[in-house]
């Protein structure tokens, strides 16, 4: 998505990204970013919390006019939960996951190989 924002911006359409993957977006470099420190999936605010969602989106609209240069990042003030455990659980690899992940990878490689042989591989 960062690449699309850069492309639009280069072509003269100002952009704002609302998102939660701060490191990935900052690594790329985008014009304007509203960061909400939530689990990936709800970049516009907590589900069913219309007031929070409106505030996040309004922050984004405000950033079009307040940003004076690229890589402008604003963080919203929200906290997902008192339990911060979600941060460690995302893509967590527990000892009991190791064999399952290895098997999953092997399956994916075999599938890709099959696709390649059938000439159905997606352009990369």
């Amino acid at each position: 998505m960062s690449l699309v924002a850069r492309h639009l911006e280069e072509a003269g359409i100002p952009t704002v990204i609302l998102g939660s993957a701060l490191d990935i977006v900052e690594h790329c470099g985008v014009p304007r970013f509203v960061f909400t420190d939530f689990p990936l999936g709800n970049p516009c605010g907590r589900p069913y919390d219309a007031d929070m969602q409106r505030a996040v989106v309004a922050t984004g609209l405000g950033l079009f006019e307040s940003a004076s240069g690229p890589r402008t990042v604003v963080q919203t003030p929200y906290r997902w939960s008192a339990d911060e455990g979600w941060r460690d659980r995302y893509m967590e690899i527990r000892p009991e996951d190791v064999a399952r992940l290895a098997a999953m990878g092997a399956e994916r490689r075999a599938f890709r190989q099959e696709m390649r042989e059938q000439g159905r591989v997606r352009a990369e």
Partner: protein
Amino acid sequence: MTAQHVPYMDRTRRYYAAQGFEKAYAWAHFEDTPFTPPGKPVAESKLALITTAALYDRQATDPRLVASGDTAEPPERLFGNDLSWDKRATHLDDLNSYFPIDRLSELVSEGLLGRVAPRFHCVPTEYSQRRTMTKDAPEILARCREDGADIALLVPL
């Protein structure tokens, strides 16, 4: 207290390494970042809404293509089962938590935004950055221009 931000690039590298993929994904990185100041106030602008979610329950093996939908009659939900997001911590049951179409309409009514462009757009998140830069991003740009969008709001899952 400030909690530690999740290091997504590091987590993803470790996760795929655990699956036996030897080559780590190289996330896009640029020294320079473009910037275009808005040509008119947001309150007079037409906004294009762009998501990484899909119009249907796409399977991992389906081709990922640029798609568009009607903002006057938005879908009840969008789909992201084939994308990476925190499926343990949250869900996509509330459209406006990741595709804020109703919130934007409210902000138009309140006069903070001019209007929403007639179509919204779905961007495929491709493994290939070259494909995104040479095919999908130009296609999104073309559609935004056809709709006369002045500004764009991008909401990746």
